[in-house]
């Protein structure tokens, strides 16, 4: 074997590896309505347990319509990648699941989505039937691009009420100072004050979302998102970072949070086994605990709003998290009228009841009537009231920014928590977005 064959062989090996990269590079261009299948509407959704309800809605629609909806479920983790690859081709879905905000901003910029305002004008319920703080998430440049289609998932401060009691903490902290006080008491009791799945990175980001909102109000992040990156270097931004540093330095998260994950059950088990006092997590944490340890979820698990920060500009009732998921409509769809009709199902009583039955919390105004049917009505009611009363519901940062920013944000929050970068490093990273 000579050098030349060796060279081509090595080239071959590495080139095959890159095949995935190029395959994704095929397509592009996109077509018009006539190149789409006749009498079919394709509906792409994130594949998971909620698909049951989506299928039921599709079946209901297909009963009376000549144009049939085909439900395409795309396995969860690959959803955004797959969507981005097909959205500008002839195989793009007519209606598709998304997270609003940054997840569709690029599509709007590339003029791929249909504004839904004409539908709303025809049937105002398409807007008025939903909670405003949620509906806003899919409004871009004053045009509506999405209709809420699953449940809301605000982030709350969960606690192990037994651990708190043993440490002498009577009530969940309502203010930042009470939180710091609780941290000291829990440390004295020999437990990790706050469980954090730092290896997943997005749980770390939740702390930034709330502290920035409480200290600086919702406008700081919105300005940054609109392109004014100077706000990251503002006094409020530095104050928020200082608060976080204070909490980290107090040992609130222990020392090994960078090796702990939420997704593999690490951090929730810390909380349920009594080795941690708190965990900041999305409302799905209840379902996670109910699945792993029903007794704990029903009797011991407590929850409260993120504490207020004294002197901060943000309203203490502001929320952060996943406002909801949305259906958006592709502008090249062959059957816009039918797509609009389908969206109206998203505020029907049947839809709300089906969602509640599988544990989701829809964000329609009629949801309240059916909360009694939830598996834990008290928890459902608590959450719904939070969302209803929230002056502002901050979409998670990594979803508010377009997907290309995710890696930068996640790396920055993780590095700040582990001490690899300081305030200046974090500000620089966020300004690079």
């Amino acid at each position, binding site marked *: 074997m000579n050098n030349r064959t060796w060279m081509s062989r090595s080239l071959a090996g590495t080139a095959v590896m890159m095949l995935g990269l190029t395959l994704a590079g095929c397509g592009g261009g996109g077509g018009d309505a006539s190149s789409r299948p006749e009498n079919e509407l394709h509906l792409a959704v994130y594949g998971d347990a909620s698909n049951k309800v989506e299928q039921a809605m599709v079946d209901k629609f297909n009963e009376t319509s000549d144009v049939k909806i085909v439900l395409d479920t795309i396995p969860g983790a690959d959803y955004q990648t797959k969507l981005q*690859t097909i959205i500008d081709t002839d195989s793009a879905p007519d209606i598709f699941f998304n997270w609003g905000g940054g997840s569709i901003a690029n599509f709007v910029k590339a003029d791929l989505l249909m504004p839904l305002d004409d539908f709303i004008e025809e049937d105002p319920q398409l807007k008025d039937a939903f909670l405003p703080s949620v509906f806003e998430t899919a409004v871009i440049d004053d045009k509506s691009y999405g209709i809420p289609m699953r449940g809301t998932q605000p982030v709350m401060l969960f606690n192990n009420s037994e651990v708190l009691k043993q440490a002498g903490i009577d009530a969940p902290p309502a203010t930042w100072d009470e939180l710091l006080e609780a941290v000291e008491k829990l440390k004295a009791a020999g437990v990790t004050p706050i469980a954090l799945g730092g290896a997943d990175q997005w749980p770390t980001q939740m702390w930034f979302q709330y502290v920035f909102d409480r200290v600086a109000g919702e406008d700081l992040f919105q300005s940054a998102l609109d392109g004014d990156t100077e706000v990251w270097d503002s006094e409020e931004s530095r104050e928020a970072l200082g608060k976080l540093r204070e909490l980290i330095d107090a040992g609130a998260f222990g020392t090994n949070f960078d090796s*702990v994950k939420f997704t593999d059950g690490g951090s929730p088990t810390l909380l349920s086994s009594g080795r941690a006092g708190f965990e900041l997590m999305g409302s799905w944490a209840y379902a996670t605990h109910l699945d792993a340890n029903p007794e704990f979820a029903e009797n011991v698990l407590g929850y409260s709003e993120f504490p207020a920060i004294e002197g901060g500009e943000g309203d203490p009732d502001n929320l952060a998290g996943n406002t909801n998921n949305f259906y958006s409509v592709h502008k090249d769809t062959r059957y816009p009228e039918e797509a609009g009709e389908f969206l109206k199902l998203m505020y029907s009583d049947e839809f709300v009841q089906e969602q509640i039955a599988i544990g989701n919390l829809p964000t329609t105004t009629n949801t309240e009537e059916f909360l009694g049917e939830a598996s834990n009505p008290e928890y459902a009611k608590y959450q719904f009231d939070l969302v209803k009363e929230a002056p502002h519901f901050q979409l998670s940062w990594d979803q508010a920014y377009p997907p290309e920013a995710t890696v930068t944000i996640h790396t920055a929050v993780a590095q700040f928590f582990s001490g690899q970068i300081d305030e200046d490093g974090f500000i620089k990273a966020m300004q690079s977005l």
Partner: protein
Amino acid sequence: MTTLATRRQAAPGGSTPSRPARSGASSVGRPGFAWALPATIFFALFALVPLAAVAVLSFTSWSGLGDPEFVGLENWETLVSDPVMVKSLWLSLLFIVLGVVTQTPLSILLGVWAAGNQRNRAVLSAIYFIPLLLSSAAISVLWRALLDPNFGIPGQLSWLFGDGNLLGTQSGAIGVLIFVGMWQFTPFHTLIYQGAAKGIPNVLYQAASIDGAGMVRQFFSITLPQLRNTAITSIILMVVGGLTTFETVLILTNGGPGTDTTITAFYMYQEAFQSFDFGVGSAIALVLVVVATLISLVVVKVSGYDKMNSSLEGL
């Protein structure tokens, strides 16, 4: 690599030339161009065309929406001044070196041992080869759970692991990745060495023991030199494997803490498929091609493998 190698050998083999000795003088000679056609087409379609496409993409800005936009050398300028890219290349190099250094001695020893005929050898070898049967993703998920600082092994052995923050420090995370790589790939290389060690003619050992050489002397003077070509094959496989390590990084560390285990192949994935910057992703892929080619060439040159000297010459 493996499939390509097999195919390269199989294609000229085909049906008739596999028994050239019997078919006589009439069919002796160089095989025609047609023999190379299937392999050439396959190679062009799945290697050269994508390679060319990636090369073109590396000069564009493209998020998957609309058409790629030509931006000249912008992606390359970004890469050259990107600290994460530079760091990732060093990390890749470190992974390769550590991988070779840890896996080679172990797999040579195990392979030579497994080539013998001791009692229980077959049973124990079968157990050693189990990791070879598992997918990388399964192995990574398994070790991720085993290494949980609170509920995994480190939680039980706090005298050894301290607070168990293995994946939260750079040295810890690299150590874990190297260890898992070793656990996963040593059986494969053991298999290669076992085959090669079995092929060493017994007469060599018999002659050596007549001359009074003990086991250790025999190992260093006969076994190791005889395994030379095998070692080069194995090391090149480790180098390519190390450069393209991906699933273990994705699942075990996700490139972290921070960017401390973001090796080049993982960075390519992040840029292309998480950040949807196919231009920069393609540029990183090209860098990988060049680096892999260079390293392979260096190994081949330095080791004298290209001369293809037989280790059995004179026997």
